[in-house]
């Protein structure tokens, strides 16, 4: 039933694709890889806010392919508020070599292909990206999505039913024994999320 609905949705989405060059997004994925990604944005409202940078890294089996790190900074229409600079640490100065949103998004789509996406609070990052893809290509990201906090929740709830589970990023990091790599930026967060994912899917004891 659900399979049917999602297939239907994908089909509807695909029919809206304006640029045939991006057909590859809908092809079946045979790489066996996953893409973990994270974005830094000007704020938390996908309608108003914009993406400042995207960081992504591929996972294959038990490996995070840091040898192929993806990182892009995007130009912005508005001035970055000083409040958000404190969070993502991206100053207007850092964006001086930034790409246009179009270039950046295209590079990102090429990096991702039709691989499944993994992330923490992925819904937000995906809707941020969708905002651009809808405009450019008429579609939303068709990839399969894996939410790490959901895996974490499922694993933890079996141990403490009815418990309140703390799903904050730093808490999950700590519980999974992942070293905090310091500064929060798109690439670092993607790498840490990837480590969480590997820990949750490979670890035997949890």
């Amino acid at each position: 039933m659900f399979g049917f609905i999602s297939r239907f949705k994908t089909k509807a989405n695909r029919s809206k694709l304006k640029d045939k060059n991006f057909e590859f997004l809908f092809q079946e994925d045979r790489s066996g890889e996953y893409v973990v990604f994270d974005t830094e944005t000007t704020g938390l409202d996908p309608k108003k806010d914009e993406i400042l940078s995207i960081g992504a890294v591929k996972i294959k089996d038990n490996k995070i392919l840091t040898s192929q790190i993806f990182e892009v900074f995007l130009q912005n229409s508005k001035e970055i508020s000083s409040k958000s600079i404190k969070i993502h640490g991206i100053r207007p100065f850092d964006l001086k070599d930034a790409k246009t949103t179009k270039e950046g998004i295209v590079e990102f789509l090429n990096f991702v292909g039709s691989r499944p996406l993994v992330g923490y609070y992925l819904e937000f990052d995906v809707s941020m990206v969708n905002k651009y893809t809808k405009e450019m290509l008429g579609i939303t990201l068709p990839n399969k999505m894996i939410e790490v906090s959901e895996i974490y929740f499922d694993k933890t709830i079996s141990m403490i039913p009815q418990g309140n589970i703390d799903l904050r990023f730093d808490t999950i990091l700590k519980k999974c024994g992942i070293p905090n790599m310091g500064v929060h930026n798109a690439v670092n967060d993607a790498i840490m999320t990837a480590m969480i994912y590997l820990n949750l899917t490979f670890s035997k004891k949890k």
Partner: protein
Amino acid sequence: MSIQDQRKLIESIHPFELLSSTTMDNLMSKIDIAYYPNGTLLISPTISSIAFYIIIKGSVTEYIDDEVHNVYSAGDSFDADALIYGKTKAKFVVDEDLICYEVKKEDFLDLMQDKKVQSYFLQDFITRHQQLKEYDQQSDLSPFLISKVSDIFLHVACVVDADESIYGALKKQQELRAKVIIVKEVEGYSIVTDTNLRQRVLLGENDISKKIGSIASKGLITIDVNDFLFNALLLMTHNAIKRVVVLENERIVGVLEQLDLLSYFASHSHLVAVQIDKASTLSDLKLLDQDFKNLIITLRAKGVKVRYITKLIATLNFKVYKKVFEMCVEEELRDKCALIVMGSEGREDQTLRSDQDNALIIQNGIDTELFKAPMMKLNSHLLELGFPKCNGDVMVSNEFWRRNTSSYKELIEKWTYDMSDESVQNLSIFLDAKCVAGDCTLLDELVTYLHSSFHSRDDVLAHIAKAVLNFETPLSLFSGFVLEKEYNNRLDLKKGGIFALVHGVRTLCLQYEIKATNTIERIKELNNMGVIDKTFATELIESFDTLSSIRLKAMLEAKTIDEANYINPRNLEKNQRDLLKDSFKIINKFKKFMSFHFHLNMVV
């Protein structure tokens, strides 16, 4: 920005910081992060190594023949040998979920083209150990920059009122043995130096009944007691003066002389020696106590090898012993006996004073009772000087350790057949005996007797050597080190490593009739006699030096003697930790050697 973070992490791991920027860029584009759950077998004789691993988090244990050979944790990397030679006899097992960087085999071999990296990975133990030590010293701050004014000896300041007569002020200066007179004015201070006196009194028209204030120079140059010595030197150089007045909370606490400042940096060991010779009372000697500690701290900070520091300290301590001996024993009795120090003092391994182990050998035919009172006095003097009491009561105040030559020979006789713990312990202590005062031929005679008594007594020797295996070397499963829970996760350096080495070497020397008492000299002698080869000897010496230097650091930081042998490896720098681990490996190798040499597995 973020790729930078990854890069920084790698660069913080020796020897990767040696790589050039381009090589590093190249490397970064080839590195992946891998995750391995607990229990994964990474490399074994049948699974060949496919990558070089650098641990971010977690730990891996290396087994050779099912024995723990090494443990790797965050910041460690492995295993170059397996990659270079394409095979290994070791087994690498993840024992705590592992997150690590992986450099693929081909890329690692490419990296090895870099001479510096290559030499690091291809070195044998000794060179690698020495390289690590050097690297470690580079990071030490120069003592010159970190010593403070409060660390150094300050002269008493002679402060007088401006109304005081020149004569009165000079009297006071004489009493206090001060170099200068500081004059307290209504507001602030001024100073009278020898130059002032020469120019204004001897050559000028002032006479000594005049007020001291009239000949003083204004503008006292001062420094705060918490300021750096380096600044004091700058002040002196800048103002072309030979001394500065030291203040603490705006109050004068003393005068810092240029001569002291310079000799402080020149370690002033000769000064301590001269002062011991000059000392005429016990309190003179007592004053030197702080100097000893300063001397150790300065030398250590300068990167002087611990074995040279201990040598120097031993020499100075022997001087103290000799002095105290002369204070306590009547002149006509002095050449009728020999004062010996044993244990760590006898081995000249001692840095900070641990417990005293000493004894007296009395010439045959002399009444031993004559020495009772002087030895009691000597013991109390030593205690007062801060030589801690010996828990085992191995001191001249104990009758057991105050006998004549024939009585000692009987004791040695007993040691050759009595296998009680007490006898073995006493023998071990006596083996390190070194004569410090009196007629030293008395000790030589006993040592010769000792060696001949134990000649070809391999059974007893094996029994003595067995103690080497008493304590497990703390290199094992628990994150690289076996820590003792009750001691706050710290490990015992003495039991865990130093004891086995010292005792083993000592026993070998008894067997081969080597007279040296210093552990390093003993190892060299053993090498000369062909008991151990050159490489092994050097390995043992380097390990001993590392253990002693880490122990010295712990001792300087410890508050009590009991605490001093414990260190927490987590508090050590990564390099120190590696050095320690390497040293423990050598200790294990030495234990195996001892087991084989004395057939210890057959001794019950």
